[in-house]
């Protein structure tokens, strides 16, 4: 690149990450403003590149402004909020029961986990417990949902990097999970399967058989994904050593879920602070070593297998009994506040609910794992190549519905 002391007309070189949005807008509409001093022109080798919000590899409406030196990323800035629907404000204007379906629309590929977290948080506030049968059903569905979420992640992530085949494989297998959801509660994506105090529906005839059949079906499929990718030269080259996040950085950035575990921190809320019926099942928490994109892939594949293990133990042992606990028809939790979090497929999903004793919550705060994890993107891609940004956005596994809420 030639060393330009002054930016030529039409160049965006004088815009950088510190440029206020208003100036960028002015520039886009009216062209460059006359320079006020020499400092206005930064290093002529720097280029500001806008990525998204309409870009297939950003997994939704995420806009990233990249500051580049050639192919090298000097810094990034995420612009989010395109899907902001004010979920927390809506919660304050709905009763506890009425808000339940809204949580499905946050992380819409893991709606079951959202509902589980919300219902358990309100149950804690009401001081009631879901009966054991409901808890087993919840665990089975939540783990099936974790499988579905990880499968969707794997297919799209591999597609971003250039491997098209896994997308068809994972969507084919995820379909079987959605069929079970549909048979159980009538919906495939935004399931609204749970109620505060238990489950809405009893399992249908043949539920257990369907789940067992699915386990048998999917076990060899996970090996198939691994055959396609784990030792694939291109896959390894594109992911190993890319987007490295050390354990200390991961904790500092509050990153949770598979991203944290791939950095070598063996922490899973299902083990650390067991909820639902997780204390009764035997499973391991897979961890990575290097905290790179490859390790995050390995950790999620291992989690698929652990989820199968949990479902296998749970489905044969669903206790008999009621599926709804004793909850009042009109819920008025006593004045107080509670924070409850669960291990969603993407990390720690927390609900902080403040009750003023009325039928509507005074405040509902959702602690979204995608939002917090996305913040570490800048740390992970500094110094990497542009193509790696795509890989790293994919590996964090964000859902913009949850980032923006």
């Amino acid at each position: 690149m030639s060393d330009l002391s002054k930016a030529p007309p039409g160049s965006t070189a004088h815009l950088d990450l510190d440029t206020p949005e208003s100036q960028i807008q002015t520039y886009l509409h009216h062209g460059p403003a006359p320079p006020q001093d020499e400092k206005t022109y930064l290093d002529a080798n720097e280029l500001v590149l806008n990525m998204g919000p309409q870009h297939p590899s950003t997994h939704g409406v995420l806009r990233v402004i990249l500051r580049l030196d050639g192919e090298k990323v000097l810094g990034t800035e995420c612009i989010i909020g395109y899907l902001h629907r004010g979920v927390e404000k809506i919660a304050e204007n709905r009763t506890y029961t009425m808000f339940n379906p809204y949580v499905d629309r946050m992380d819409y590929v893991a709606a079951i986990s959202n509902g589980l977290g919300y219902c358990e948080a309100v149950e804690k506030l009401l001081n009631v417990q879901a009966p054991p049968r409901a808890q087993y059903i919840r665990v089975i569905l939540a783990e099936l949902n974790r499988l579905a979420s990880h499968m969707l992640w794997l297919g799209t992530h591999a597609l971003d990097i250039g491997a098209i085949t896994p997308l068809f494989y994972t969507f084919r297998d995820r379909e079987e999970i959605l069929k079970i959801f549909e048979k159980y509660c009538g919906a495939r994506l935004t399931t609204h399967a749970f109620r505060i105090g238990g489950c809405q529906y009893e399992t249908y005839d043949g539920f257990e058989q369907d789940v067992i059949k699915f386990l048998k079906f999917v076990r060899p499929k996970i090996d198939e994904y691994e055959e396609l990718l784990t030792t694939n030269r291109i896959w390894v080259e594109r992911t190993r050593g890319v987007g490295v996040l050390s354990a200390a950085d991961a904790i500092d950035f509050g990153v949770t879920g598979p991203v944290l575990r791939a950095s070598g921190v063996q922490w899973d809320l299902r083990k650390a602070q067991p909820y639902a019926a997780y204390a009764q099942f035997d499973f391991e928490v897979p961890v990575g070593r290097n905290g790179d994109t490859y390790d995050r892939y390995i950790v999620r594949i291992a989690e698929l297998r652990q989820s199968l293990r949990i479902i296998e133990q749970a489905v044969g042992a669903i206790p008999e009994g009621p599926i709804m606990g004793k909850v009042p028809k009109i819920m008025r939790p006593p004045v107080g506040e509670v924070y409850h979090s669960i291990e969603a497929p993407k990390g720690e999903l927390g609900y902080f609910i403040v009750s003023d004793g009325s039928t509507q919550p005074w405040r509902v705060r959702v602690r979204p794992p995608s939002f917090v994890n996305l913040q570490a993107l800048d740390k992970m891609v500094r110094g990497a190549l542009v193509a790696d940004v795509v890989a790293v956005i994919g590996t964090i596994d964000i859902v913009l519905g949850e980032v923006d809420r």
Partner: protein
Amino acid sequence: MADEKNDRLNPHPEKPGEAQRTGEDAPTLEQWTGATSSPQPMPQGGQAPATASPAPHPGATPLKPEEKETPKPAAHAPSKPAGPASQPWEDELVARLRARFGSGVREAGSYLGQNYLVLDPSIAYQSLALIHDEEEFEYLVDVTAVHYPERESPFEVVWILYSFAKNQRIRVKACYTEAEAAPSVVSLWATANWLEREVFDMFGIRFDGHPDLRRILLPDGWQGHPLRKDYGIIQQDQEWVKINLGIESGQ
């Protein structure tokens, strides 16, 4: 709409007549009909007057409006289920904080098994730094806020912290007025950056020492902070919508 809004601004309305209807203490059919708690005197001779039990046709509903009133006292006797009371929280961490800051630690309690601290706003940063540096709370789970418009310091900022070593979660709270700024903890936990920006965006609470305090979810030019209680559910920045979207209203 206006009444409802007022209601929401008053968080603890004492409505004496309003009984807590729960699954457990819902009045039974007998109570509703006054069969058991009827104040009517028993007629002499133990024989009911013919009018009291006229044996109407079986399909007739036994609920009469005036009889509905009678069981009310019985129904709301066990009124609101007084939730589990907040217990005092005594711990080495609390003791150390009390030794350092004295009465700056306003309250240390435990509700539903979850520990929380209420701090004086002036010592919030020092306490959080101490909790981070010396007490191994290396993971900041969340920063959020709650708006209580009727209070003197209406904005309660909540920091949720977790310690991997102790497997313990605590909540630290401090209240601020409109004019005061909360301390930024970005220097302690990098994750606070976006979380504080979101609190600023939604509540308008400023964080002193934040490197880049801008809106994050709403557009930069937006007026108002939607999670405040005086911001209506369908309210929006009309001017912003008109200028930027070219439409009259987003509704």
